[in-house]
């Protein structure tokens, strides 16, 4: 139990330390690539969200609700 708590605190400290790093605009070369941009998948997400609305309980973070269905 203590070990788990220590690991969790360690992860939080690591993320906290990383969050102190400011990435400057000239260092954003990689971040601007499509595979690093969450917006790249927006149209694919819309399609998957529609399938999930018709077939799954979960909304998987796309927003959820609505959408007619050929729900069998």
């Amino acid at each position, binding site marked *: 139990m203590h070990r788990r708590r220590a690991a969790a605190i360690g992860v939080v400290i690591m993320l906290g330390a990383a969050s102190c790093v400011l990435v400057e605009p000239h260092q954003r070369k990689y971040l601007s690539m499509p595979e690093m941009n969450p917006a790249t998948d927006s149209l694919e997400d819309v399609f998957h969200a529609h399938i999930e609305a018709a077939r799954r*309980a979960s909304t998987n973070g796309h927003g959820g609700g609505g959408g007619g269905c050929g729900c069998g």
Partner: protein
Amino acid sequence: MSRRRTSSLGLALWAWISLFWVAAPRPLLAENRATIRGNYYREKSTRVMQPLAQITVDAPDERLTLGATYLLDAISSASIASGTQAATGGDNVFTELRHEFVGTAQSKLGEWTLGGFFRYSTETDYLSRAGGVSLARDLLRKNINVALAYSFGGDRFYRIVNNTGAREPWCGGDVDVNFCRTGGYGRNNNFLQIHNTLASYSHTLHETMLATFSIGYAHLRGPQDNPYREGFLGGIEETHPHVRNRVVLTPGVRWMVWRERITFEPFYSLYLDDWGQRAHTPELRVHVRPVRFLRLRARYQYYKQTAAFFFRADGQYVDGDSRCSRDAPINCATADVKAMPWEAHTPGVQLTWEFDGVAARNPRLRWLEGGFVEVTYNHMIQDNRFGNARIGSLAFSLAY
């Protein structure tokens, strides 16, 4: 009075337009984009073909971006539970068309981004309208982005009857069809209200690492059962609770190992609702660039959901005569796979060819710059009555 209102509107419009021009830093780049996409979904008894066209225009730059999307869902089903009995008079293949229009507007003013959308969707026995707004803010020199979004959806449900194309409003399995109304809202109405809120946070941890977290909450009120599942339930109409509260949490990371030209994208979704359902969705995507302008993505998703509180594994439901709720699950009945426990494995691949290389080498093809073609295939292996599903898409996009 009316002149004063017109004058106030004019002033507000002028102030808004002025804000666009004054508040945003210059110079800004404009990129208009046109995308066409074909989506395909196939399982044992249902096939969906979905062509889609989307256009976005910066007018004149990112201070105002307008977008429009049209998509057509051609849903062919041989399943009784999809209404084929009611629509065709037998268990024959039934093709239904759904049309969807979406209009979007987005404005980036310095560190703030404002957005709004309206969506209209219609098919034979279903009508949906939704609208929403969003607000996002960049912080710490764009190292942090915080966003909030709210949308409201209003859906109207109908049931096709007598295989003549005639339809009647559907208010849920526990509402007598003679008392079901359309044109308003409330218990005996065919109106489903959907309130959606989403808060998201993204944090640049390193020049090759981005962490994201989102939490979504949805409140649904209205009919949420399928009017065509009597066949599965021995003549009893499917009856679900009219109220549902849903929460989904999604943490994720994108980490690029540039030397190897590989990006790892693990994320996880935890879904909870007050129907007693819980779903876990861990997913890993790996993006590779074998050559500079070619992207390859491999994906694996695991999905597992638990049953709703009113689901009975023995399928022995009784025809309840009053409201289905957590206090009275005896009045509920379901043949909906969405309310059952099951799991799925989805491997998939995607190939994207960016046209920038071709455009740079050949001046005549410069118009292809920023464009791409993308092919995607996912295979969903699931242990529910739908059986395995094949999901594919082909997209072509140009910047202009």
